[in-house]
């Protein structure tokens, strides 16, 4: 049976995920998204994986959420509060969400994973480090290249071009 910490974390995570999408202001929405990502980090702690939880806090709550906040601040003020929504589209979206949740939930409850329990100790984070440097080393190098390529691409995309004399500024 679920304990109190699990219930509190699921309320925080799911509630702030809904708030992130439904809040009127995009700034409050991104703060709610931060709460949701922090809740996921709490789930990682419950699952005895503190290393992934710290990574999640550093990458998501620390950098991505701040990046999103700054982008929101660059956008015009009335666009932050503008909400364009089709009533019919919203209805279809909610129906899609409910169908998805009910069908996937039924499949999961009917499958054999209810019987899976474990008494074994959690995986030590030293094992993760070993994995990274032995079996997964090509993937680690590839990931570094992808990250540097993505950051360079983002900088090139966001660079402003001076229209008149074709010179790049910034």
């Amino acid at each position, binding site marked *: 049976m679920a304990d109190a910490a699990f219930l509190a974390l699921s309320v925080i995570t799911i509630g702030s995920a809904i708030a992130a*999408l439904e809040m009127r202001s*995009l700034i409050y929405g991104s703060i709610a998204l931060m709460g949701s990502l922090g809740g996921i980090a709490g789930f*990682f702690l419950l699952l005895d994986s503190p290393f992934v939880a710290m990574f999640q806090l550093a990458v998501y709550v620390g950098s991505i959420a701040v990046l999103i906040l700054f982008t929101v601040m660059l956008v015009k003020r009335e666009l932050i509060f503008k909400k364009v929504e089709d009533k019919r589209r919203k209805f279809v979206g909610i129906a899609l969400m409910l169908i998805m*949740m009910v069908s996937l939930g039924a499949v999961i409850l009917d499958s054999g994973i209810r019987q899976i329990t474990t008494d074994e100790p959690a995986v030590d984070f030293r094992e993760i480090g070993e994995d990274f440097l032995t079996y997964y080393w090509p993937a680690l190098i590839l990931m570094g290249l992808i990250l540097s*390529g993505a950051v360079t691409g983002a900088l090139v995309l966001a660079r402003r071009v001076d229209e008149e004399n074709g010179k790049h500024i910034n």
Partner: protein
Amino acid sequence: MENTLTEFVLVSVALLGIGIYGLAVKRNFIRMLFAIEIIINAANLNMVAFGRFIPDSAGQTLALFSIAIAAAEVAVGLSLIIVAYRMYHNIDIADFRSLKG
């Protein structure tokens, strides 16, 4: 472990449903990015939960890779938002007509 695997997977399904709702209904570029983030996090939660209950270190390793790739995706997505905003002065995806294939 007091919590069972089913509970974690059900939370992940709920987050996936919310993310799909956001992608289907919202027309704001930044909100769609929020929805994508929520879906990615649901996937990460699933990986770590299965990795804990099997138990195997591959779940956590893959979740770490996934978090790093998601960071790259958000950086590119946000710079696309800035470029599109500079071109159209709006972040409503219905206005990005010339991007239509």
